[in-house]
C-alpha cells in the first residue's frame, strides 16, 4: 500500500507541542527524516510511559518508519492516550492502511482513545469495522465504536 506520510516539522529537541509538530499529509512524500537522535536513548516499550513523559518522541517514533510492527502496534495504541488533536487522528488514519493487521489493530485502539471527541476518528473506525480484511481488526473497530 502507498499512502501519504504526515510530515514532522520543527526541531525535535525544543518542544513537546504536538500541534506544531505535525502537518497535514502531503502525498506522496515518503518522509523519513526522524533523526537518529530521537531514537538514540530509546530503550523500547512501554510506549504508555512515553505518552506521558515524552509525547513528541512517541509521535516521532510512530511516523518515523523505524519501528518493527510488533512495537508499532503498541506505539499507535499509546497515541490514543495523548490529549486529542486532529493531527494525531490524521497520523492514525495514515497508519490505518499499514500492511500488518497487528499494526492496524493498534491504530484502532489509538483511535478509540479519541473517538468520543472526534467524528473523524469515528469515521476511520467505521471504515475499518466495515472493510478491513482482518476479522480481528474489524471486531476491534466495531467494539471501539461502542461507547
Amino acid at each position, binding site marked *: 500500500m502507498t499512502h501519504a506520510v504526515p510530515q514532522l516539522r520543527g526541531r525535535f529537541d525544543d518542544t513537546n507541542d504536538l500541534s506544531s509538530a505535525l502537518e497535514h499529509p502531503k502525498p506522496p512524500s515518503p518522509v523519513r527524516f526522524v533523526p537518529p537522535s530521537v531514537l538514540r536513548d530509546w530503550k523500547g*516499550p512501554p510506549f504508555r510511559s512515553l505518552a506521558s513523559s515524552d509525547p513528541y518522541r512517541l509521535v516521532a517514533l510512530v511516523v518515523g518508519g523505524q519501528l518493527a510492527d510488533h512495537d508499532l502496534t503498541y506505539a499507535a495504541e499509546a497515541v490514543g492516550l495523548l490529549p486529542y488533536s486532529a493531527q494525531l487522528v490524521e497520523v492514525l488514519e495514515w497508519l490505518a492502511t499499514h500492511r500488518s*493487521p*497487528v499494526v*492496524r489493530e493498534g491504530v484502532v*485502539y489509538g483511535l478509540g482513545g479519541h473517538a468520543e471527541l472526534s467524528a473523524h476518528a469515528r469515521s476511520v473506525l467505521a471504515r475499518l469495522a466495515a472493510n478491513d480484511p482482518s476479522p480481528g481488526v474489524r*471486531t*476491534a473497530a466495531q467494539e471501539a465504536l461502542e461507547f
Partner: protein
Amino acid sequence: MLLLRVGRRKTTWELENIDDIIKVDFWANGEPDLRLSVYLIDEHALAQTLAEHGASNRSGSRGFQNVDLSSNRVPVVTLGDSFFEFTRVSHRELHFSDESELKEFLEALRSAIGVRLHVVSRAEIKAYVDSHAADAEWVSFTAKYGAWKP
C-alpha cells in the same frame, strides 16, 4: 478448567510467523517472556477474569481474544498483582527454559488454535462490571483509581 492467557491483540494468531506471534503477545522487557502469566479458571469465569485483569492493568476499552495454554506442562502457583482477590488467587505462571522451548510449545498449540481461543467481547466485560459495580471490591477499586470504563 482453562489456563487462560489474556491476549494483547485479537490479530496475533492471524500472523503466519511464530516469531512475530511471540513478539506481539509473548514478549516482555525486550525479550521473549519465559514466565507467562496465566489464569487457572473455569470457563464461566471468563468475563470476571477479563474485567478484573483489564481494570487492574488499566487496559483500554476493548474485548479480548485469549488463548487456553492448558497442556501437560505444570503451571507455577504465583500470586498475581491484580487488585481483585479472584484474579490474584487464580494467577499462575508457565515457565520456559529458553526461547526455543517457548517457540516449540506455541507451535504445537497453534495447530489447534481454533479450539483454544476464547473471545470475550467488550459488551460482556461491560455487562460484568455494571452488574458488580456495587460489590465491595469494585467500590474500593473505583474509590482508589476512579471508574474504569471497559
